[in-house]
């Protein structure tokens, strides 16, 4: 039993370290590409935490969506912008320090509010585990409106992307 506990504790701290150092890399590095990869490492750590908390499905979705799609999209955007030698010469950093500060403080406050309002239930007294059927049901019954609203946001994003990509009238390819 002791060995088992040691392993789970070690895993937990490994995931925490991944999240922490990934996040640190994301904000400290001067190279934009490294920052995104730091973010990817951090998100992988979060996926590990979901796994640790007994929800493998959420962990998989975290990897599939955040690491596999969002990070790749950001990297794709950066990739066409700069080459590694350019980055070494110029050292591209953020210019809007004030806006960055403002947005991070706002996000921090938002998280603080969410943290203080949540009622933490110990895992032993939780009713249902976050299994696949449970998640599916709560998405389609309890949180149906939020779910549909998110899909509208996605639709707007797709339509926006198409409008931007179409360019001016008369251009064809």
């Amino acid at each position, binding site marked *: *039993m*002791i*060995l*088992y506990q040691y*392993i789970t504790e070690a895993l937990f701290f490994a995931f925490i370290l991944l999240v922490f150092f990934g996040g640190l890399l994301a904000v400290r590095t001067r*190279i934009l*590409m*490294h920052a995104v*990869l730091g973010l*990817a490492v951090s998100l992988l750590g979060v996926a590990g935490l979901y796994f640790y908390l007994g929800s*493998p*499905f959420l962990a*998989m*979705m975290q*990897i*599939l969506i955040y*690491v*596999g*799609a969002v*990070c*790749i999209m950001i*990297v*794709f955007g*950066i*990739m*066409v912008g700069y*080459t*590694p*030698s350019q*980055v*070494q010469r110029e050292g591209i950093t953020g210019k809007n320090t004030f806006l960055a500060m403002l947005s991070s403080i706002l996000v921090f406050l938002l998280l603080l509010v969410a943290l203080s309002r949540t009622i933490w239930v110990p895992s032993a007294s939780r009713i249902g585990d976050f*299994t*696949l059927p449970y998640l599916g049901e709560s998405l389609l019954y309890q949180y149906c409106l939020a779910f549909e609203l998110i899909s509208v946001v996605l639709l707007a994003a797709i339509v926006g992307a198409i409008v931007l990509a179409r360019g001016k009238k008369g251009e064809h*390819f």
Partner: protein
Amino acid sequence: METAVLYELLRMLISVVLVVAFVFINALIMGYLERKISAHIQRRPGLMEVGPHGILQLVIDGLKLIGKQLIVPKDADRTLFRAAPLLSFAPVVLPLIVIPFSPKLQVRDFDVGLIFILAISSLNVLAILMAGWGSNNKYSLFGAMRSVAQNISYEIPMLLSLLAVILMTNTFSMQGIVQAQGKIWFFLVQPVAFLIYIVASFAETNRAPFDLPEAESELTAGYHTEYSGMGFSLFMLAEYANMFVVCSIATVLFLGGWHGIPLPFGAYSGAIWFFIKAYGLMVFMIWVRWTYPRTRFDQLMNFCWKYMIPFALVNLLVTAVLVKL
């Protein structure tokens, strides 16, 4: 309890070693098969020098690749350049954990096995991007961009075709999906999904006719142009292992996994059937590669977005209605 945990740890260790060993052996077999089959398709003998019919050629090649110097280009991003091959290798080893080779031969049966495979293999694209950008080379960059564009696009019809099968089995567990095919294999029930999956898997593994990311004639070798020695061979190992993973998913979801006519090998016949099916599909992929020319990039994208995704969506819709009836 203590011994159970120790036993489980030992089992995990052994299975990880076996899985990694399998990735290497798979690359040996596939490398040999690819060179030999391509040679015979082009009416030449192919490998003949090392061993009978050149069967030891790949071993010698492996030794040569290990012995080669690892060169990092001067203007490359050193960290990314070095990390990319490692990152491309890890995601193709992990899916082998959940693949059921036979009723018992499986490292771990996850509830979300199929999603696990799909999530992990999406990391491969990140490695390709890192390699392409980190090399600081035009060809690499173009290769990586093409690779990402086609991988992300073809992931959609692929997922939609897999979802149609999932609707019928009601489980993501790989073992469960195989067990659901005791009576009839799903490629007979879901021929459209099978076809879409096979076409999408060519694009996902960057194989011809969709091998634009590594098109030799225009991009030299795409994202791994600058790599030498083991850096290059890790990409190659990953590519072949990725082919195996994709073909195993097809085997598990459409071709009945380890089901088959009983062979005179007792408990091993399931695993033998599985390997026959998976390697049959892989030989098919090689066959296609040496038969059809490369497509153009706009043809590739148009085909995905204008034909495959609508067909996959309609197929999913029809399946959902029929399952509910």
